[in-house]
């Protein structure tokens, strides 16, 4: 499947089916992140049930603390 993640076209393996899978694939699943799919923010409890489709536009912003 091909997704547009943070503006870049990225091909992910077939096992990536949901937002949860995507975060795990990028090893962001233990980080605090905000995920937007096609301009809609996905709530954390929806990560496992939100399916991704070819061509979806995904924005991932993860929080950091330093300053």
């Amino acid at each position, binding site marked *: 499947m091909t997704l547009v993640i*943070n*503006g*870049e076209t990225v091909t992910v393996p077939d096992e990536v089916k949901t937002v949860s899978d995507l975060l795990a694939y990028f090893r962001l699943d*233990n*980080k*605090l992140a*905000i995920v*937007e799919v096609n*301009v*809609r*923010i996905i709530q*954390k409890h929806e990560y496992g049930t939100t399916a991704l489709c070819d061509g979806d536009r995904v*924005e*991932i*912003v*993860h*929080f*950091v*603390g*330093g*300053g």
Partner: protein
Amino acid sequence: MNERYSRQQLFAPIGEEGQKKIRGKHVVLIGAGALGTGNAEALVRAGIGKLTIIDRDYVEWSNLQRQQLYSEADAKERLPKAIAAKRRLEQVNGEVEIEAIVGDAGPEELETIAAMQRPDLLIDATDNFDARFIINDVAYKYHIPWIYGACVGSYGISCAFIPGRTPCLYCLLETVPQGGLTCDTAGIISPAVQMVVSYQMAEALKILVEDWSALRGKLVSFDLWTNEYAAVRIDGVKKDGCPTCGRHPSYPFLSYEQRTKTAVLCGRDSVQIRPSARRQYDLNELAELFRRQGLQAEANPYLVSVSLGDKRLVVFRDGRALVHGTKDVQEAKAIYYRYLG
């Protein structure tokens, strides 16, 4: 109006009117590290009316690579950052009133400033989420905009939160990130700092000139080494039940239980201890007391630093202390009580 702000006034969205507004504004800056010094210099050069700087730390050599207001002399003297920043900023622009507060930006301190001084803007330049959730509560309780900023490595993130206009940090995060997630030891490069400062300052200028429609309305992040950029609109995440900005706010981070007396400092191998009652030390006397016990102690007008083998104890006038060389709160407390009673 003198020539000093002419280029800023020529910028049409600010103009002469905007400059007058900027001049009448009071900004509170929480933290005077990398983001804090960058924001402070920009605000003072832009000609705000008053800047309050709150910081609990002092200048060290490892700060000089990116904390732009500090000099080698400040590190040698271990000057509190708020004091060193004020000194430098007064050289940059003598027209700006600068208030330096050496201390913790806890709920009591921030609420007092918000209630008594009614500042126009709070800028987050802290290094931890405990502080940010306190800022978030104070901002929404007193209807003051605040601007989140953070950076680590080559990555940075920023967002402006405006009571009455945007959801708050709690709506976005739902939980307070715990230590391991955010305490970074990944280093930091100065362009990441400057980029976050730029995002924060751009939103700050819009807020100060009251150009609300120009606000970004997005949580923005970037990585200057991997050349990535992402932005997410935040207006959709507002929650009616939010304890900070919902219909029945309780401001949980301002409650007594949240007033932590100890804090492990991010990536610093240090613990901060605040005594339950404020103390008032004569620092020279205290240093002398340590020396009589055969310890190596140095004092400046703001703090005493004592070497204890692989640990170091730094005591401020009001009894607040930093124990360096440990992340163990119990061990730090033991050291504190052994030497300060």
